[in-house]
């Protein structure tokens, strides 16, 4: 489970504010490779999911990369941990977790993910079978909706 200090700090901000913060961070990169370098760093710093959670029912299988997602619900808030075999996917996951972790189901259900567009990662979330990320976002929303 990922409840670190950054997460607690995040809870004082709205979903929208965190998204704006991420967009501001990415605005500093001049070139695509720098942007990806940063995402790779994020991917490497995201704690690995415990192997016991990497069960088939948590697996979101994609043609390109696999994503494991585990959700828990505590005191009205949802917490997520996730992992992927691809490091860039993991980096993007860490951004999603930063936005969604510790939110109420209602906040998650109401959220849009405009930051993905604004930092130019839309292609990584295109709704094809090529990528497990789209399914991961759907799964996060589903976890929220069933608790509303």
């Amino acid at each position, binding site marked *: 489970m990922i409840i670190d200090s950054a997460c607690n700090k995040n809870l004082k901000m709205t979903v929208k504010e965190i998204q704006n913060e991420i967009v501001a961070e990415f605005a500093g990169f001049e070139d695509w*490779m720098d942007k990806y370098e940063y995402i*790779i760093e994020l991917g490497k710093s995201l704690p690995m999911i415990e192997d016991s959670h990497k069960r088939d029912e948590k697996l979101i299988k994609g043609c390109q990369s696999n994503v494991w997602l585990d959700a828990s619900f505590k005191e009205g808030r949802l917490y997520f941990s996730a992992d992927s075999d691809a*490091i860039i996917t993991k980096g993007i996951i860490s951004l999603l977790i930063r936005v969604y972790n510790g939110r109420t189901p209602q906040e998650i259900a109401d959220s849009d993910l405009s930051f993905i567009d604004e930092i130019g990662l839309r292609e*990584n979330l295109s709704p094809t079978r090529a990528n497990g990320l789209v399914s991961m976002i759907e799964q996060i929303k589903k976890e929220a909706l069933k608790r509303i």
Partner: protein
Amino acid sequence: MKQIEEIRSRFAYIGTKVYGKPLIYFDNAATSQRPESVVEALCMWSRYANANVHRAVHKLSGDATDHYEAGREAVRSFINASAREEVIFTSGTTASINLIANTFGEENIMEGDQVLISEGEHHSNIVPWQLLCKKKGAELVYLPVDENGEWRMDLLPGLLGSGRVKIVSAAHISNVLGILNPVEELVAAAHARGIPVHIDGAQGVVHSCVDVQKIGCDFYSFSGHKIYAYTGIGVLYGRRELMETLPPWMGGGDMVDTVTYHDTRFAPLPLRFEAGTPNFLSAASLGPAIEFITSIRVPEIEENEKNIKFYLEDQLNKIDGLHIVGKSPAKVDLFSFRVEGAHHSDLAMLLDKMGIAVRSGLMCAEPLINKFGQSGLVRISPAPFNTMEECEYFISSLKKAVGMLRQ
């Protein structure tokens, strides 16, 4: 060198940029780019020769039919089929194989029979046979590939010797392994036992001068979009004597001779297998596309193709922890590989940002990639007119990407 520059100038995409970097297209095994001659011909026909084929008496329909049939004649000559009746237009390789499974298979495969394919097939040459076998109570059996990806020809006599194999279907060149398979030997062995053979030429038609009579196969299939033509058109070559015995599959217009409310007499070959309005513009585009591919099969370009193949293979092998899947003296310039410590989709994403289009993932050949213990690979498939400079840039970009992912 002059000739390569001239050929490159015929492609609008060459010289364009992605993410501010010159685009290097190394995904030709999935779809090739189109020379202007093909694009212009299609635009012209779309504007001035767009009418339904084989139907009306008016001038425009006659013109459209001429272009459509010229596409057929271009294919016939390109693969050296003995007659135009042997060239059936389909929507692509996948549709061609489904056509065989649903006509020949429907008629000849019974409970307890076997269909023999190789372990090196893509999904298009697996799933139609799985569907057929399930429906008929037949068995799908595989010719194994060895650790290098080459067919285990030593096991072929045993497999054919079961006495139950009713058709063999195998790739001329696997889209993952890039090895030119010994298809003539396969056909000879199968024919010695009276078993018909289909060769999946989706990649083979790109990398070799296909002569269906020399190969001796009963069926050969391929797609237009991998040989510089438009999408949505493919070919099924079928040996005439065999095709004459097959029942129709899809019913509709254009495949009929006379129709009453109670019965239908079917049209002769090839129209019997072309129900409904065909993709006549894309079919016609095969004409200029084949003209183009034939025009680049000249010593200077073939030399270039060979040089970039050797360079890429050599340089890839020098990258620490990189493993090419598919090794053979009969290798074409198509390389699938894995890199220790770097995920295939990460590599593909980083290369994309450096302007290089490669394929990654399962490449529609999941069983084969799993056989090699992988969840995906990176594949590069250059065109014969890619330059050495582009290959050098690719190698340095790949090294950079690997470095970023491994640190």
